[in-house]
């Protein structure tokens, strides 16, 4: 059924359709209306689940870890500082291989205090062993969240679904909402093979002595790295059932493109418009929208970008003292290959700064210049920066 809902409701609806049994969340800022909606579903009897209100996001993730370990489907949602406060427990969740699903409305981190959109929060925890999937629109949020439970549970890995704060989280869009019976057929009941049970005692979270710790990290790395195939497989099945699929990345008019934009999340939509308008003028420009940031699809990235002369990596985050996270990883993907395209990193849209068509076109123009001259003058560019305010 088609409905007009915001990104947060798309998440809540997906969690409801997934029949989550435990929701543990911190209910105050920087929380979104996701958990408000879920609390409403529980109170009016639409969802049979336990809602645990906690005093911090650290506790929210801790409660999800406990719940998932007892063998029930656990879910939480967060954002910004909340995700950072949770970060210690993120590593515990992945280390214990508990298939928790969490959605994160991408928002900036303090200071200065800000609650607007950028992707600094999830970028900061990219090393935590969580699968990270980024969404372009509200339909993709709903579909990805449903898929996330299958991915998590088949691989015993936690999955973080990321979507841009405000731009998607608080913006209404038409979303095709599947029926409960359709989701039930796609998503089997939760089963955790080592669920806590007094009849079958197990030890969870033992000491990882030097003789074994490395092996467990190796196995975790292998699991996240190899999750790519499962993500694609589950997406294929989803597409067969629901008619919508997203892949691990999307190549948009990039086949013969000389200049390709690489980005994640809602910026992809803005970039598609720019690509279309430049294509109308006969310019060979394309887009690659990366959905799965972890696992990072190195081979697919090389395949998708390797044909271009120059790539504009446009992102809303920065690893301070180096470059944007997406840029760093994309550059690393091309190490030891012969034909790497030139790359420029465009940092933009921090804390809700508008990324206009004019700015995106400017990024394309600079990248085209690099493609023509074969030279990159400045590797990292701040798009839309008010130069006058930062001049010495």
């Amino acid at each position: 059924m088609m409905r007009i809902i915001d990104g947060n409701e798309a998440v809540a609806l997906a969690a409801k359709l997934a029949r989550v049994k435990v929701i543990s969340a911190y209910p105050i800022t920087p929380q979104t209306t996701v958990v408000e909606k879920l609390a409403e579903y529980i109170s009016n009897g639409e969802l049979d689940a336990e809602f645990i209100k906690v005093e911090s996001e650290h506790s929210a993730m801790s409660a999800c870890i406990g719940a998932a370990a007892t063998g029930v489907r656990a879910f939480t949602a967060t954002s910004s500082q909340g995700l950072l406060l949770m970060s210690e427990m993120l590593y515990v969740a992945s280390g214990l291989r508990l298939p928790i699903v969490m959605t994160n409305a991408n928002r900036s981190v303090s200071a200065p205090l800000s609650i607007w959109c950028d992707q600094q929060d999830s970028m900061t925890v990219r090393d935590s062993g969580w699968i990270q999937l980024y969404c372009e629109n509200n339909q993709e949020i709903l579909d990805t969240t449903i898929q996330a439970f299958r991915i998590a549970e088949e691989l015993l890995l936690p999955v973080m679904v990321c979507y841009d704060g405000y731009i998607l989280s608080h913006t209404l869009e038409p979303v095709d909402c599947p029926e409960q019976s359709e989701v039930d057929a796609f998503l089997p009941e939760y089963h955790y093979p080592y669920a806590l049970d007094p009849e079958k005692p197990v030890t969870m979270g033992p000491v990882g002595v030097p003789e074994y710790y490395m092996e467990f990290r190796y196995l975790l790395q292998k699991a996240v790295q190899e999750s790519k195939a499962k993500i694609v497989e589950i997406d294929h099945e989803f597409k067969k059932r629901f008619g919508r699929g997203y892949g691990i990345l999307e190549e948009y008019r990039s086949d013969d493109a000389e200049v390709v934009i690489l980005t994640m999340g809602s910026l992809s939509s803005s970039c598609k418009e720019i690509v279309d308008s430049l294509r109308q003028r006969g310019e060979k420009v394309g887009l690659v929208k990366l959905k799965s940031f972890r696992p990072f699809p190195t081979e697919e990235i090389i395949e998708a970008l390797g044909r271009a002369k120059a790539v504009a990596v446009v992102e809303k985050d920065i690893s301070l003292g180096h470059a944007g996270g997406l840029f760093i990883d994309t550059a690393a993907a091309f190490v030891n290959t012969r034909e790497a395209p030139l790359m420029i990193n465009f940092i933009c849209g921090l804390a809700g700064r508008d990324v206009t068509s004019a700015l995106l076109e400017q990024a394309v123009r600079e990248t085209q210049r690099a493609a023509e001259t074969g030279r990159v003058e400045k590797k990292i560019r701040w798009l839309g920066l008010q130069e006058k305010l930062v001049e010495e």
Partner: protein
Amino acid sequence: MKLKPGAVITEPGNSEKYETGGWRTFCPSVDPAKCTGCGLCWLFCPEAAISKGKPPKIDLRYCKGCGICANECPVKAITMKEGCRQ
């Protein structure tokens, strides 16, 4: 041995398979002439690595070399020495 995902241990009481002797820096050495067989070392050993007897038998597969036995021995029959291995 196959490692389980998330380091879950599904076999209760399997810590005896983990030999902690490798942690040891100092090694207890018993002087049988001094030992009275009182059993205090057996009682105090936190690893249960000592069997009662005169002299007691120390299982070096598990002895971490903590030195509690030497400290508790009322007749100083146990001394901690560097370098001894299994």
